């Protein structure tokens, strides 16, 4: 045991003497989590809170145009402008302003749009009441011209279409009901109440997060991003870990150690202990940053609930998986350069597959199937289970075991490789 402590002392000393490297091991993960969470939070806010710059040219000074304009003005989604340089723009100027990037969207409501809808509805109501089949031709259609910034993403475009469709279909329904009321009043002696005024909504929806128990935890960008980027950062321990192994091998220290009364397993285990401590300390610092620093810079505070024990266990299991992977990389690769390139690219791939960048459920089917092989995916799901879903220990346990088995498999792979190489 004394020999093992001497190895741990040596590994700790080597890590601590590299002050720059040590600082990077803590500063870079903190910077990564802070930056990525802030970015994701800002993106979320730009869509939902800050408002998107929209230029509206309403050439239809009637029900449709005025109603759409009013709803856009009231919408928290858009910051709606109707003028450029204190005057109403032309259609070409709307297109140019969006193309120049001054606005993300330009919407043009054509002249006489409301009247065209009225005429169409009137004609159809008339035909329906006289027993004929209502018909409509292309001349009846109303086209709202929408210009989009070319950098706009598809998902955002779909959201926009949905919003504009919602605004216009409401006023379209109103016009239909107005025309029906008008025609009925022409036919009946007793006037009926304007049906378009009956706009009472009958379908409502109530939104609630399906968590177990009343945890008070509100899913937000912090609750989603802190665990994701923390796992990502922790897995980057693979690079310094593999580097330490390769350095020891290249300078002959490993060979010297192997001629002494100490096993290779003990040499690896001592490094594991030191780097496990580093990983765990990284996790604690990120947690402290999430809970105490985030609110000071305008981000929501990370809510850990009362699951600190399970969180700690998960952090240890994640660190163990990362270090196990580091042992495999450090054993199989021959140079520091090989190790750092392979480790960094493979961690990014495993992170992408694991749902760190984008959620697994929106990935293509074949990627969804592959994603289950990523230990980062197991870690992420288990962290979400703890932080967001308030899961019990028995639900998180498979994730912890999976990560430990992954570490074990990596170490076995490294030992088998080492044995085969030794024999050859």
């Amino acid at each position: 045991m004394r020999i093992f402590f001497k190895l741990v002392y040596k590994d700790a000393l080597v890590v601590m003497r590299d002050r720059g490297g040590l600082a990077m091991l803590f500063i870079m993960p903190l910077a990564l989590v802070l930056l990525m969470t802030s970015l994701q939070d800002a993106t979320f806010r730009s869509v939902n809170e800050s408002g998107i710059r929209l230029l509206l040219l309403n050439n239809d000074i009637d029900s449709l145009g005025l109603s759409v304009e009013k709803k856009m003005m009231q919408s928290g989604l858009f910051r709606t402008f109707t003028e450029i340089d204190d005057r109403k723009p032309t259609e070409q100027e709307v297109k140019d302003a969006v193309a120049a990037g001054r606005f993300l969207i330009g919407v043009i409501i054509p002249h006489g749009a409301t009247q065209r809808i009225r005429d169409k509805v009137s004609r159809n109501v008339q035909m329906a009441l006289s027993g004929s089949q209502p018909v409509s031709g292309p001349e009846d259609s109303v086209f709202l011209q929408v210009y989009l910034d070319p950098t706009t993403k598809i998902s955002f475009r779909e959201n926009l279409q949905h919003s504009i469709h919602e605004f216009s279909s409401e006023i379209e329904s109103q016009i239909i009901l107005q025309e029906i009321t008008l025609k009925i009043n022409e036919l009946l002696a007793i006037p009926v109440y304007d049906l378009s005024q009956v706009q009472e909504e009958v379908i409502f929806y109530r939104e609630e997060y399906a968590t177990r128990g009343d945890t008070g935890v509100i899913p937000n960008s912090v609750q989603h991003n802190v665990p994701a980027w923390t796992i990502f950062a922790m897995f980057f321990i693979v690079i310094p870990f593999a580097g330490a192994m390769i350095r020891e091998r290249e300078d002959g220290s490993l060979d010297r150690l192997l001629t002494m009364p100490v096993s290779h397993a003990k040499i690896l285990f001592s490094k594991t202990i030191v780097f496990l401590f580093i990983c765990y300390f990284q996790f604690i610092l990120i947690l402290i940053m999430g809970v105490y620093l985030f609110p000071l810079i305008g981000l929501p505070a990370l809510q850990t609930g009362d699951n600190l024990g399970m969180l700690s266990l998960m952090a240890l299991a994640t660190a163990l998986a990362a270090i196990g992977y580091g042992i495999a990389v450090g054993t199989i690769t021959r140079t520091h350069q090989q190790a750092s390139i392979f480790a960094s690219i493979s961690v990014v791939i495993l992170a992408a597959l694991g749902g760190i960048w984008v959620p697994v459920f929106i990935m293509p089917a074949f990627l969804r199937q592959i994603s289950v092989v990523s230990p980062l995916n197991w870690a992420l799901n288990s962290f979400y289970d703890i932080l967001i879903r308030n899961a019990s220990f028995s639900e998180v346990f498979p994730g912890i075991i999976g990560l430990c088995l992954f570490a074990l498999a990596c170490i076995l792979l490294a030992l088998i490789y080492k044995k085969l190489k030794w024999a050859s």
Partner: protein
Amino acid sequence: MIDSDVSIDIKDLTRYYKGNHIPALDQVSLQVRKGDIFGLLGPNGAGKTTMIRILCGLLSPTNGEVTIEGYSLKNEKAFIRKIIGVVPQDIALYSSLTARENLSVYGGICGLKGRFLKERIKELLPVFGLEKSADRHVEHFSGGMKRRLNLIAGLLHMPRILFLDEPTVGIDVHSRNVILENLREINRNGTTMVYTSHYLEEAENLCSYITIIDEGRIITRGTLAEIMERSGSCTSLVDVFLSLTGKTLRD
């Protein structure tokens, strides 16, 4: 029957490397007697390092048997590791640690502890002229200082057998002299040594028994006097070496 005078007994040692049909060691048999400074010489690629790595337990032989102090290398490696010391050709030290920290780590791993370990470090550093640099980081040492510290790390725990793989390569005359003088002294105190070097004059002066190997086979062996006697007209070990191994370049 075990000869109590034999420290290392090697029988038919053969080693093939993967993908190479020519053996690095080809049925080598030899004995190293207790108290000898055994010089293992040969050109590049002769099989010296392969043999040292096998004797230290870093490489497994394809065939053959090795016993060290009566213990089988195959079955009792853990015990053998306690009685051998290795001074590798590489500077196998942690450059960010001080000389004292390096020795404390290696000594501790070899089983030395507490006061004894500290005393042993305190005793050896001045012998090799490193007492004033004990608390300096090794990365700031000169080549000679590193070589001397590399040597101390191998003999700190007073091994019965010391393997020295080119311990004086690339250092100045002063450092070399200190190392060789101290190796003689350590040998006088009973440590058996297996020594490889390309400096044949050094081997000539230091070794009590010499074996020259080439292409994995022993080509001559004996005391310096015996080798010179067999060589006829050769006047130095260098002449013998060149006459036996040829003058073509080796890689």
